[in-house]
């Protein structure tokens, strides 16, 4: 096992990863609830829930609102070419983390 993989397997490292993800998740959920006027609390949205269709039931108009909310809150642009990331809370967070990592 490489040293890099070893580092990824420590409690300390994973605790930090999990805590950061949890914090991002809470922020994103609160922003979406407010922006889209969802009658939900953050604890009522699972991170892998589909945003559209049978999950949260958002529509294409909401997609634009989601993109604006993400840009305002996280400073990350979701362009027309990136709309595929709007599948779940987790896939949006993956995109945010990736873009913030590049910044």
């Amino acid at each position, binding site marked *: *096992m490489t040293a890099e*993989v070893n580092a*990824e*397997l*420590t*409690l300390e490292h*994973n*605790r930090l*990863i*999990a805590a*950061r*993800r*949890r914090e991002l*998740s809470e922020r994103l959920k609160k922003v979406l609830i407010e922006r889209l006027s969802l*009658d*939900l*609390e953050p*604890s*009522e*949205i*699972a*991170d*892998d*829930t*589909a945003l559209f*269709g*049978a*999950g*949260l039931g958002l529509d294409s108009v909401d997609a634009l609102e989601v993109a604006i909310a993400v840009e305002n809150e996280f400073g990350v642009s979701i362009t027309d070419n990136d709309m*595929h990331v709007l*599948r*779940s809370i*987790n*896939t949006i*967070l*993956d995109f945010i*983390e990736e873009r913030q990592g590049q910044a």
Partner: protein
Amino acid sequence: MAAMSGFEESYKAAREGFGLCDLGEEGRLKVTGPDALEAVNALFSKDLMSVLPGAGIMGLFLRDNGEVLALATVFVDEDENIYVFTEADTAEALARHLSEHLRERDVELEDLSETHGLLSVLGPKAQEAMVEFAGEDILGLPYLGFEHNERIDQKIFRMGGCGEFEYRLLVPRQDVERLNEEILSLQTPVSPVRIDPQVMPVLELEMRTIRHADIPEGATPIDMGLHWMIDFRKESFPGSEAVRQAKEAPSRRAVMVSFEPGSAVEKGDELFIEDRCMGEVLRVVPSLTLGRPVGLALTDPEFGWVGVHFLRRSTASKEEEDVCRVTSAPLFITQTALQS
């Protein structure tokens, strides 16, 4: 009748072309009568009273303690007749549950598996195929909508827990074989395939659509990430108090995990960080799209977050271990999603 395809051919058809899957084992119930809508609504975790005629909704039937009795998709027709679809594993228990609770209501409960077959036309090319088979009106059928199709004189339900177009035909038994032949004989650009039903749980888990058998005893819908199948504003339904309490302090988190290609991971294997056991693998499937095993695991709520790495240890052979990672779902964008 055409022979069933092997696993890989079935998977490829479902993800790249289209095919026909006989879901005859799946549960299907019909509730009719003046009290049907209200009575079923009282037992369901979502609000059926707000469902428009010709539409359906996915939700849960729960026990009073919040445990999941069945995952179900419920449709309402224009006469407020209720169609309930559930997995084969929970069909009998659900029928019994509805029978007990609807006993004193003015309803009739019918087990449609005795009189009707259930066929699924599935895949990114399924919509084109259904236009050929059932006419262009099918293009107007929304996800979780259903209609009685005039051209083929059958009920068609649009579903899709595996992320692709899926049309389920509820077919009187005497028509099953004929419709099988007709669909498999369609002259479409992509030839249909007879899909092995065993591929369905794989397709579904890639989209994080879980099955009742994935839920360990004592696990709540909140533990399993099934929040979206619950209407927390609905006043009362069996288990409602339990899930409201559970959501404030979940004791576990079900997450999707990506394993190393070639990993010999099995259900029941444990997940560690250093010497702490953080969870276990509930189910693992071979994702042919990703070229690696992927699975559902139940973990410590502090560590059940995307990006966390675990050391997977085999329960069968203690020396066997490899690294895995919590990953986002749905696991990839399907061909159907790209078309939409």
